[in-house]
């Protein structure tokens, strides 16, 4: 019972916190430099892990699918299946999981440590609202970066699949691309994937900044908050993926 009350209370605090962040976002357009700096630390610094992961996921998908499709003599459809898997599901979901692990945990730890070292209190006493100056730019940066990272993940994944499928296993290059062109719809597939990644970016960034801001300001408190960010945002991404998929592909 106590755990339930705690969870509801945290959800309430998180929602109020989110409303404060959203209220602070219009001010950020006057200080967009703050967001640009955060897009670098949240987005650009997650790029390397996203590129490597995307490449390997695409390569493994191509390998697995090639052996299965050979049985049916349908290896020409390899590019299309890889593309649909990546654009619809794996791109947004795996990129969001990587984002939660790399950028989400870093955001929570950074904000948590700022709280523990009284930097947030210091800002408040300087009559500067830390939600507007520290939290909102990080939230917005996460929200902007996530769809871009998911798109890069999918693009690199397709290139990885091409290198394995076409260069290594001998699938026809023309068939690989033309199947993609013919069967992948921009609105149904690509746009839905982008919408998913926008939603995931919102959720992961929200959880990450809230956990940092709400943490107990001790070493243990920050460590726990960082763990909670990764666990909660990963689970939330997977659950939301199911809900969004059910709505999008009825």
């Amino acid at each position, binding site marked *: 019972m106590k755990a339930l009350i705690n969870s509801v209370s945290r959800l309430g605090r998180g929602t109020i916190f989110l409303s404060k962040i959203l209220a602070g976002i219009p001010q950020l357009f006057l200080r967009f430099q703050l967001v640009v700096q955060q897009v670098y630390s949240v987005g650009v610094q997650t790029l390397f892990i996203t590129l490597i992961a995307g490449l390997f996921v695409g390569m493994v998908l191509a390998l697995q699918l090639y052996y299965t499709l050979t049985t049916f003599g349908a290896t020409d459809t390899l590019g299309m299946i890889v593309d649909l898997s990546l654009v619809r599901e794996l791109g947004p979901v795996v990129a969001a999981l990587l984002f939660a692990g790399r950028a989400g945990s870093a955001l929570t730890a950074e904000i948590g440590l700022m709280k523990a070292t009284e*930097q947030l*209190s*210091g*800002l*408040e006493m*300087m*009559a500067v609202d830390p939600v507007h100056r520290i939290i909102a730019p990080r939230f917005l940066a996460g929200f902007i970066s996530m769809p871009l990272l998911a798109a890069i993940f999918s693009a690199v994944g397709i290139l990885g699949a091409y290198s394995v499928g076409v260069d290594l296993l001998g699938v026809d290059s023309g068939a690989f691309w033309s199947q993609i062109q013919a069967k992948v719809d921009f609105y149904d597939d690509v746009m839905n994937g982008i919408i998913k990644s926008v939603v995931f970016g919102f959720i992961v960034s929200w959880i990450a900044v809230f956990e940092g801001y709400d943490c107990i300001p001790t070493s243990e408190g920050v460590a726990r908050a960082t763990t909670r960010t990764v666990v909660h945002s990963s689970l939330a991404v997977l659950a939301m993926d199911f809900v969004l998929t059910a709505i999008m592909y009825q």
Partner: protein
Amino acid sequence: MTQALIQIRNLHFSRGRSKIFDGIDMDIHAGRITAVMGPSGTGKTTLLKLIGGQLKPDAGEIMVDGLNVHQLKRADLYKLRQKMGMLFQSGALLTDLSVFENIAYPLREHTNLSDSLIRSMVLIKLQAVGLSSAHHLMPSELSGGMARRVALARAMALDPMMIMYDEPFTGQDPISLGVLVKLIRDTNNALKLTSIVVSHDVDETLSIADDVKIISQGKVVAAGTKEEIKHSDSPWVRQFIDGQADGPVPFHYPGDTIEQQLLQDIR
């Protein structure tokens, strides 16, 4: 005696089940250095956070410069805070900004001054704390004492009417300690500030304080000028000033006696 810049009346504040303040009254006079002293965990830092409006009391009121801190609208509270400097125990410098940028931060946020004027002002503040040549360093490159001096320069950046010092002497080597003591005294005199120094370092704090308040177990147990406190025969004051292990603040944590606890084990 000058008028009270800060008036605290019947202040009650609790954290969970533990009562931190149980009806505190206190006047902090303008232009003076007031030391708020007491054993660790008595809520000295909490008192500063209440004065700064970062925490809300359960009951009672805090008037700063004629304004009730906890009834102000957010915008008005922020305006009042621009007149309140605070030096945190850890310094609370923004770790991703250089010393120069840390001090420039409140100026950039609250004024429309040109970059060249901000540069001059920052260097003047740094000169006052003896660190004008350290403006390019990052907070991680500073010693604890230097970090507090930079934080003091930042607290002075907007020329406040008062500065609150949270444990400024804790963990300082004798030289840094001497520097900080001198800076607090000189700053208060030169800028005609009102200073509140929260500390349990008796000698250093008494050397610069004009007024002293001792709080313990949620109450103000002694208040007066420095001389009055030094010569007080109150057992609370004597225990604290002389560092006696036992007295009104007991050596043993309250609870069952050792005999009762041992007997419980046997049963």
